[in-house]
């Protein structure tokens, strides 16, 4: 019996000298995996124009009805996106969203991408609705903020050319 006791205590003792597996979360953050789907971001082109053309395909693909898109017409004096229209209102209810990534798959211009932010805690339900201003990324270094004034005839296609269609 004594031998078994020593054997058991030896295991305990061995674990005392091991490093703890605990991640000290609020101080040390484990980087998410590359395929992790977190909070959405609305992307921009390199010149600062918004990728979103307000087609609402993401809202149609969303199984939880978390996305609301309202489109408006672009003009050459006030141009937000290279297409015919842009999203004047873009809202995602983070408490409805199940982070499935269907919106990302449905998007023809790869405007919406699920990035790796996951810290989404709210005191009330109204603050869980993320507006376009909260979702859109910052203007790139060489880009200009939207709306931009462009030469007439620069963007004459209703839908911009697709890059890397999936």
């Amino acid at each position, binding site marked *: 019996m004594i031998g078994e006791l020593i054997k058991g205590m030896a295991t305990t003792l061995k674990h005392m000298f091991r490093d703890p597996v*605990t991640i000290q979360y609020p101080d040390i953050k484990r980087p998410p995996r590359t395929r992790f789907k977190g909070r959405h971001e609305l992307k921009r082109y390199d010149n600062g124009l918004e990728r979103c053309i307000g087609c609402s395909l993401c809202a149609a693909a969303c199984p939880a009805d978390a996305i609301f898109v309202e489109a408006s017409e672009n003009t050459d004096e006030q141009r937000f996106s290279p297409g015919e229209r842009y999203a004047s209102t873009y809202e995602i209810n983070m*408490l409805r969203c199940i982070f499935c990534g269907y919106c990302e798959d449905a998007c023809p211009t790869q405007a919406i991408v699920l990035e790796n932010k996951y*810290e989404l*805690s*709210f*005191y009330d*339900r109204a603050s*869980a609705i993320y507006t376009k201003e909260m979702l859109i990324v910052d203007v790139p270094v060489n880009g200009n903020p939207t709306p931009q004034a462009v030469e007439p005839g620069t963007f004459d296609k209703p839908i911009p050319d697709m890059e890397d269609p999936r």
Partner: protein
Amino acid sequence: MGIEQKLGDMGVITLRLEDLVNWGRTNAMWPMLFGLACCAIEMMSSQASHFDASRFGMELNRPSPRQSDLMIVAGRVSRKMAPVVRRLYDQMPEPKWVIAMGDCASCGGIFNNYAIVQGVDEIVPVDVYVAGCPPRPEALIDGFMTLHEKIRSEKLTDHA
């Protein structure tokens, strides 16, 4: 109940006492052993060794509502479960807090139908909503931190 009702004008001493009480409340908050669906798996994971909720004094999941301070509604609440959740909440002693963990508990999530309660705030007052389907353990711990922020700003008389 006790000191909360006897406090009149809040002087310096009682304000410091408030800080002490809130510190105590944030550092020994026992959640109720109570999971309804898949979010409970992540809740268990947040208490296991990798994330270790005992760092915040939350290692004791009390299987009785009378010994718990925090109700984590982890998972979708069906209409049939709703009275049970409410009863468990009523049995918890004051002060008590509720975290709606995940989309289904917060607003029904993907289950926008007649069988699921569209957010547990229909039946119990919710302090913090945590988004995610399910939220990863870090997201839940972030919810705990958000709740701790809220408790630190509470007054003693709030729970009187």
